[in-house]
């Protein structure tokens, strides 16, 4: 058997990569992709603990998260398209209208 903590480390690593991507990447589509990565890292964590506790709840919740992620991606892309129509850019640094 693969020890549980291997899955947790993988999840943590993916999560960290995703967070760093959200915080540092300029392209908003890449930021969305990074958010997906974060969500998938959480899914791995959930499934890992579901196998550990021999309960199916974790997996059920993971399916919720996947559905949610899909919906969120759709909405996010819609937002980006609307944003692009107005500002002609997908660079996160250039979207700073709400500054002081």
């Amino acid at each position, binding site marked *: 058997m693969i020890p549980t903590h291997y899955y947790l480390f993988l999840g943590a690593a993916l999560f960290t990569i995703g967070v760093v991507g959200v915080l*540092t990447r300029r392209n908003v589509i890449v930021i969305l992709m990074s958010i997906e990565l974060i969500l998938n890292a959480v899914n791995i964590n959930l499934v890992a603990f579901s196998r550990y506790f021999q309960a199916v709840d974790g997996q059920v919740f993971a399916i919720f998260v996947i559905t949610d992620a899909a919906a969120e991606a759709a909405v996010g892309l819609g937002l980006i398209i609307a944003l692009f129509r107005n500002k002609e850019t997908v660079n*996160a640094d250039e979207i700073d209208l709400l*500054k002081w």
Partner: protein
Amino acid sequence: MQFLDFIWLVPLLPALGALIQLLGGRKLSNRAVSLVSVGLPGLSFVWAVGCFLQLLLLKGTPFTKILYTWLPAGAFRLTDGSLAQLSIDVGFQLDALSAVMMLVVTGVGFLIHFYSIGYMGHEGGYYRFFGYLNLFMFSMLILVLADNYLMMFVGWEGVGLCSYLLIGFYFHRQAAADAGKKAFVVNRVGDAGFLLGVMLIAVTFGSLNFLEVTEAARSGRFGVGDAAITAICILLFIGAIGKSAQIPLYTWLPDAMEGPTPVSALIHAATMVTAGVYMVARSNALYVLAPTALALVAGIGAVTAIWAASIGLVQNDIKRVLAYSTISQLGYMFLACGVGFFAAGIFHLMTHAFFKALLFLGSGSVIHALSGEQDMRKMGALWSKIPTTAKTMLVGTLAISGAPLFSGFFSKDEILWQAFASPYGNKLLWAVAVVTAGLTAFYMFRLFFMTFGGKSRVPHEVEHHIHESPRVMTVPLIILAAGAVAAGFVGWPQMLGGPNWFEHFLAPVFENPAMRPSAHHAWSLEFGVMLFSVLVAAVGFYVAYRFYVARPETPERLAAAARPAYRLVLNKYYVDELYDALFVNRAKNVGNAAAAFDLAIIDGGVNGAGWLTRFSAEVSRLWDLWVIDGLVNVMAFGVKVLSYPVRILQTGLVQMYALLIVLGVLIFMAYYLIHF
């Protein structure tokens, strides 16, 4: 006694005219103004004649009419606690003396008003002229008809005022305005003396009423040469010096010629300037008690006569010559009074009124014909061009020169004889007077020949417009000329067989027990003196003829030969310049100093108060700007500074917000990990 009871109409009718003109005359047409302001004095003259005729019926008793009591007795307390007994009324006294004056003023005055319709017809301010002229008539009549010294003084001041107003009638001309001021101020100097004299009379006699004072003086209470009486007489005479233009207060009269010619005729020839003579005559009871004062009067009169005549010899302005002539003739009148023969002075006053008014109005006619020219050097050969004026002027010239049978002859001769023979006169006075008579004849015929005779020196443009004056101007000239001839006959001397009505008419007024009795002189002596004076006048006439008709180059040659003397006399002996240096400039400096003080300190104070107000307003503004607004601004700045850290967090960058969220989570995790 209908006329006499309403004697107050005589002064009040012209006063009514003055009131109408000065209140509403602006709205009236020239015709209406003429009707009112010439008609009313005319009515006044008619009434005066009526009063005169009724006075004759009273056979020498003076008529008095008191209108009301001005200052009642007991009106104030004296320093010793008793009540003052002095009482002054507003009343009129008509006796022989004031009757003569009244007739002269109203008669000649009316003729001059009539003449002015033509002379002033084209001038602006027509109603104003007649208003002032009527006011003058009113004041002068108050002066001559008053029954006490104070009311006479009211009239005295009134004529001074009207003189100022009328001399400065063309007030936009600096020379005229200055002349009016000069007349008034010089007059005022005399008035100070007059007023002191009046006050002294009040103190000495306890009354200012003419009849009361005369009676007290003649009662024997005062001895001849009494100090108080002498002081009174000298002070009163100072007033006369100012009003009647004697030395040293005569300088205003020649300048007064800046006024319109009818003004010169009425005020400065026939009436106002004679007020001094009238006043001295009225106070004859006092003067007879003060021989020193009489000597002063005679002396000043004689000196003035010859002084003014000498200046008149070389003047080139026709009106100036007549002005100096007036001063000289007034000197004659005072000479007559000063030698004790007041009737002779009044006689000359009357004849002088006729011929001097005639001469002035005639000169006005000449000036009118020459479109305003007054310089005799630019006249000449006008006899044929303006015949009526010329003939009447000839009558006037003959009268003033003392040509036999003209009025001036009788009156001047009377004076010369009295100067010679009177107990108060002396031969020196007579000599001065005779020389003056010769000078008078000379300069008057000089005037006549330069204006009407010889060759024409009139400039070409003026020559075309020469025309005789309209009838409204020539008729008064003719009437005055008739008067200048006939007026003398009322004083036909006894020596030549006449009754001398004039002297007898005035006798009750001048009866003074204190007067020195006149010595009896042979009539041949009187005749000789008369003949001598006629001879002197003839010499004057002949010299004038030679100088200005026969050999016209003589005056210039003489002037060139005696250049400094000529210049001295031409410049009136520089008396005006002397007065300027002694008095006028000093007074002006005081005035200027006062004005500077007013400007610097009084106005400075006001300006300073204003500056202070503006300064405190400025301080207020700065306080508001720096302190009040400053506080508000500081507060805002403080908020800005304090909010800075919070503000800079709002970058609008989503990734930065996300970073902060992550950091926050990490901090919470760290906290929990450490504590559990």
